[in-house]
């Protein structure tokens, strides 16, 4: 029996042009969340054009056939809407807003207009290129450790792999971008048959289907979308890597990476439970060992997490910082000892209970708002071709056995599957391993 966490109906349909429409009514709020997932991300960027998917996402707010620059935000706010933004990650680009339910049609009209047309000028491109360069400065270049995730993906994936570069891209390549790059990008990827439209809230599914047909129905399908060419990756990196960066940082800090299963793959639930037991929260093994028992590392809210990349093998990412007077290598050794212990001795049932309780409660939290619920449905519809798959999440976790976790641990925590990236202060003079995701606003 499916878990009751997702307790709302789901209505799915496909327009003749291939646009998938997902509607999940919830009359308890006077709202409608409108969310678009486009199946295009930084992984589609060829060499020399890194950062273009994300810059393009900014340009989608710069106007379209019937909408002026900036007017998307202005019209949504003026109708009483909010929670407006977009984001790009290696896998996908999403666009979203929540409006009073009586304004659903306006949001659909706006999204359809920019799916079907792009009002791009050299001036708006130059402006948003400057904005994105400032985003890069603010998040990467002007902050201590700011480039760690960019360096890490370059180590974790072979050169040229779709995941081997950061979503924000490079200053030089952004400078080289021309108008033609972005009109081609829109023509190639922004099509109804490469998108999922999700609407959640106080809406009637039949009415949403009619409106989707009215606003999106005449847009032409692309037929097929070019996909990145990636050679299959082995389960492990193949050899350990250790990289040390000496920079202007206040104290040593270490980032640790293992190759792990992709989000949505059969081993992903076991990896999520494993990393939650080992690395998430005050009761995790890494916290209790590194902080409480051995006093080697500073407290972190999370020491390890399974990243959710969907299309190729993902990463199990960790971060820690030695306490004052402790050598970085001592923390690294202890970190891997905790990993090795999990392989050798397995996990205790009560540890698994804690992890299940945390993940299940977080699932309720994730589904609590119509905006987050719509985004989640868009993800499941994009990844599995069926939004109903969202109902299986807790059942899949419940089906994971200690043996499954032991196998995933053994495959993941191997000597030939480790990257250690250490920052050292340049002169004697904490963040967490959040996933890299760029936003328009």
């Amino acid at each position, binding site marked *: 029996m499916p878990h009751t966490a997702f307790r709302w109906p789901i209505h799915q349909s496909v327009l003749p042009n291939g646009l998938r429409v997902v509607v999940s009514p919830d009359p*308890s709020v*006077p*709202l409608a969340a409108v969310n678009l997932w486009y199946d295009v991300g930084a992984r589609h960027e060829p060499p020399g054009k890194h950062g273009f998917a994300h810059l393009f996402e900014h340009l989608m707010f710069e106007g379209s*056939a*019937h909408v002026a620059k*900036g007017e998307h*935000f202005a019209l949504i*706010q*003026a109708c*009483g*809407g*909010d*929670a407006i933004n977009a984001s790009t990650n290696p896998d996908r680009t999403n666009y979203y807003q929540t409006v*009073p339910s009586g304004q*659903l*049609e*306006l949001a659909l*009209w706006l999204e359809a*207009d920019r799916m*079907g*047309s792009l009002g791009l000028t050299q001036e708006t491109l130059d*402006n*948003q290129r*400057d*904005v994105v*360069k*400032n985003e890069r*400065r*603010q998040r990467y*270049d*002007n*902050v*201590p450790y700011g480039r760690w995730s960019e360096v890490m993906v370059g180590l974790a994936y072979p050169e040229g792999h779709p995941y081997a570069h950061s979503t924000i891209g490079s200053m030089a390549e952004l400078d080289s971008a021309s108008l033609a790059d972005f009109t081609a990008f*829109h*023509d190639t990827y922004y099509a109804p048959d490469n998108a999922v439209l999700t609407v959640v809230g106080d809406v009637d599914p039949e009415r949403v289907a009619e409106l989707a047909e009215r*606003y999106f129905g005449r*847009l*032409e399908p692309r037929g097929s979308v070019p996909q990145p060419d990636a050679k299959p990756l082995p389960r492990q990196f193949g050899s350990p890597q250790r990289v040390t960066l000496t920079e202007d*940082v*206040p*104290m040593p800090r270490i980032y640790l990476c293992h190759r792990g299963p992709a989000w949505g793959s059969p081993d992903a639930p076991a990896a999520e439970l494993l990393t939650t037991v080992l690395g998430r929260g*005050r*009761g995790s093994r890494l*916290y*209790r060992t590194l902080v409480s028992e051995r006093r080697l590392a*500073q*407290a972190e809210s999370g020491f390890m997490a399974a990243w959710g990349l969907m299309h190729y093998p993902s990463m199990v990412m960790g971060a820690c910082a030695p*306490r*004052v007077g402790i050598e970085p290598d001592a923390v690294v050794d202890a970190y891997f000892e905790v990993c090795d212990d999990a392989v050798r001795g397995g996990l205790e049932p009560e540890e698994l209970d*804690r992890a299940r*309780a*945390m993940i*299940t*409660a*977080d699932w309720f*939290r994730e589904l*609590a708002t119509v*905006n987050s619920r719509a985004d989640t449905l868009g993800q499941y519809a994009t990844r599995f071709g069926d939004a109903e798959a969202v109902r299986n999440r807790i059942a899949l976790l419940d089906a994971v056995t200690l043996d499954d976790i032991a196998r995933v641990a053994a495959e993941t925590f191997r000597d030939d599957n480790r990257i250690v990236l250490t920052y050292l202060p340049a002169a004697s003079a*904490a*963040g967490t391993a959040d996933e890299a995701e760029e936003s328009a606003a």
Partner: protein
Amino acid sequence: MTAERLVAERPTGTAPRPYVFPDVRRIAVPGGGEIVAAHLPGRPIAWAGLVMECGALHDPAGLDGLARVTGGLLDEGTRSYTADEFGLAVEGLGARWTWSHDWETQSIGIDVPVALLGAGVDLLAEAVRRPAFTDADVERFLADVATSLQHAWSQPGTRSQQAYRRALFGPESRFGRMLDGTPTSNARITGDDIRGFHAKVMTAPGTLLVAADLDAVDLDALAAAVFADAPGASGPADVPAMPEPPSEVRVLLVDRPGAVQSVLRMGHTGPPRSTPDLVAIDLFAEVLGGSFTSRLNHQLREVKGYTYGAGASFLHGRRIGTFTVAASVHTEVTADAVTDALAEVRRMREAGITEDEFTTTRAHVLGSMPIHLQTPRGIGARLREAVVHGLPDDHVTREYAEVVAASRDDANAAAGRYLRPDALTIVVEGDAAVVEPGLEAAGFAVTRVVPEE
């Protein structure tokens, strides 16, 4: 893809339904303590939090950060649980520990599946009423605080914030220093300070906030758990000395050699939460800097490309508030960005907002209210506001009605009264050697400052 395949005519919608805040129940508990509970039928997650009068203004002289450190240690070991055991107990419920600390109060809370709210509040009571504060836990926790402060003070924006607060409130006022204190002030804190602070101001009953499906909750049991062992008393801290506001624009420059961006903070003091002009202020402030379409973000980001984002806001405290413009801008455009931002503040004060801006902003404020209040924790934050500022239970519903009734004239009168573009304190944290000449050439009197750490 061509425009002919699109629908040219923009659709019109219907007006949103008026927002009504959930029903609130208040229960006075014999012997001290009060419960303020919002009813959220059918919600699987619940939140409860205890509000206590023990904010940063209660920090003793020289020990800035003590209130925050004491609050942070509550779940780091109790009479019946070691720190690790307590963490395991909270996480075993699927709960999240929530803790917010401010100038006046702290709120210690738990976000938990509603069926486990009783167990969660038992843990809350254990942490607040029976903390252990062992020397070992204190030493470990303070070491982590020291390194996290070191990390924070290496980030752009922290040192400028310290300089900004000092300039606004003066070095003698607690408001003139950082909420969390400095690395130096925190380094002075001892276990005895922490135990003493708890005994003095964290043993009063306080107010328990609950945002939950109340049909599934035994409020009396929650009260019994939280308000036992609460014999103390605590109230608002003494009012700190308020400085004379400056009479002219001043630029304070905090050096960050090699920085590729400058962090800007520009502002002055503002009215407290009790101002009758609250809604009028919020309306013009949103147009000036409160959203993506605001004038500041439009000019500095969407027109000039100086920044990833620019904004401005009023924060209304119990006794006083602030008005602050904030942005991180590319180093080479620092002086231009300051000049543009100052011009926007001046333009708002002198000309106010347009009829169109008023109409769209009011619609945005009204329509988006339920979007921001979808979670128990979000509802709980508005309950906390009611308790901290002594507002009626339906203050959010009343606020909605006030926004409906507001006029453009009110907003513009408030802009004229509460913006002081000729007495702004401007703090720039950036590469001083690069940005100083430009700021001086733009006509600003620049003073280099070195914030206390």
